[in-house]
């Protein structure tokens, strides 16, 4: 196989070539694919979420739903529309260093935020009677299911597998730059799509909040 250098391969076709590439193969820093230090935090959040659901307290459910949803929406918008385009224009070395620090964190942050938002949101809607078919904003609620459903398919079907595959590729002694470039483009594009879809979530949720 003809070797494609990582810097050639990682440069997205639609973006200008990164300036001042260092000679030779880029260095991949040591990193953990799953940051184990974050797992106790995830466990604590999930325990708190279960307690909120069992207690069925309005404030606790609202807290988990609003905090989780706000962070989920904010991160999706920020990554998809701000970080993604910047990442595409960084040098290969900078992109690798950023990815090895950023993507493992995303691997545990996003599923946790999604779980706390959806689980608490479902219970909150039930608590408030919004799940009832005769709720006057029922159509908006069903629209929110559809938006979340599409985002779930994109995130679980494309974004997360690409994220994980990049991290494993970066762990190889000689990472395939072309493959990483392809997977990173998929990650950035799908993050952008979910970011745009989050605008629809904001429209629906603000409508539901005011009744």
């Amino acid at each position, binding site marked *: 196989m003809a070797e494609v250098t990582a810097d050639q391969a990682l440069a997205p076709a639609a973006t200008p070539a990164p300036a001042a590439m260092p000679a030779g193969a880029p260095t991949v820093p040591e990193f953990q694919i799953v940051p184990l230090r974050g797992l106790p935090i995830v466990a604590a959040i999930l325990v708190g979420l279960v307690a909120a659901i069992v207690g069925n307290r309005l404030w606790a459910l609202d807290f988990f739903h609003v905090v989780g949803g706000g962070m989920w929406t904010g991160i999706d918008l920020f990554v998809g529309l701000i970080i993604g385009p910047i990442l595409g224009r960084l040098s290969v070395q900078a992109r690798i260093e950023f990815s090895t620090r950023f993507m493992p964190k995303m691997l545990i942050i996003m599923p946790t935020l999604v779980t706390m938002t959806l689980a608490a949101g479902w219970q909150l809607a039930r608590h408030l009677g919004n799940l009832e078919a005769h709720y006057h904003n029922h159509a908006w609620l069903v629209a929110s299911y*559809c938006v979340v*459903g599409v985002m779930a398919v994109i995130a*679980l079907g494309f974004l997360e*597998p690409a994220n994980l595959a990049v991290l*494993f590729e970066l762990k190889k002694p000689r990472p*395939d730059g072309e*493959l990483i470039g392809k997977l990173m483009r998929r990650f950035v594009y799908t993050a952008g799509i979910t970011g745009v879809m989050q605008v629809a979530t904001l429209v629906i949720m603000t409508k539901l909040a005011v009744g």
Partner: protein
Amino acid sequence: MSAVAGTDRGVPVAERRLPPISEVAVATIAVVVMGGIYLAAHLPRRAPLGPAYGLLGIAGALLLWNVVSLSRLRPFAWDTFFLVGRWALLAYLIFAGMLEFIFIFDHVRGAILVILTLMLAIYAVNIPLLLAFSVARYQPVADGPDR
């Protein structure tokens, strides 16, 4: 079987032709999500269950097709597949378990609970399968007998 890192029978691992396991897994997620939305949109009334059974059947058939296709892959980086798969399965069993807990806690009963439970089971197996396949497909195949 090739023992060369990054290749499989002389073909770079990234360029191997494999069955559309990822695509079918994504379709499975979509069908499960559609089933969940269909049932949720009718709550608290009982939705007509025909479409829900249909979607469940389609999702189950797609998952089965994927498992059979996977089992026929030779050679394949099975070590990596199972490494990623078992941890992802643990994580998604926890997430699916939480959703199941909410359904039971909210007094969902009968056929709807059975359908939702089976859809959650498909979800909890399908996503780890997709994640494990997405990683393992790009891994070099280790020395040793084909599995």
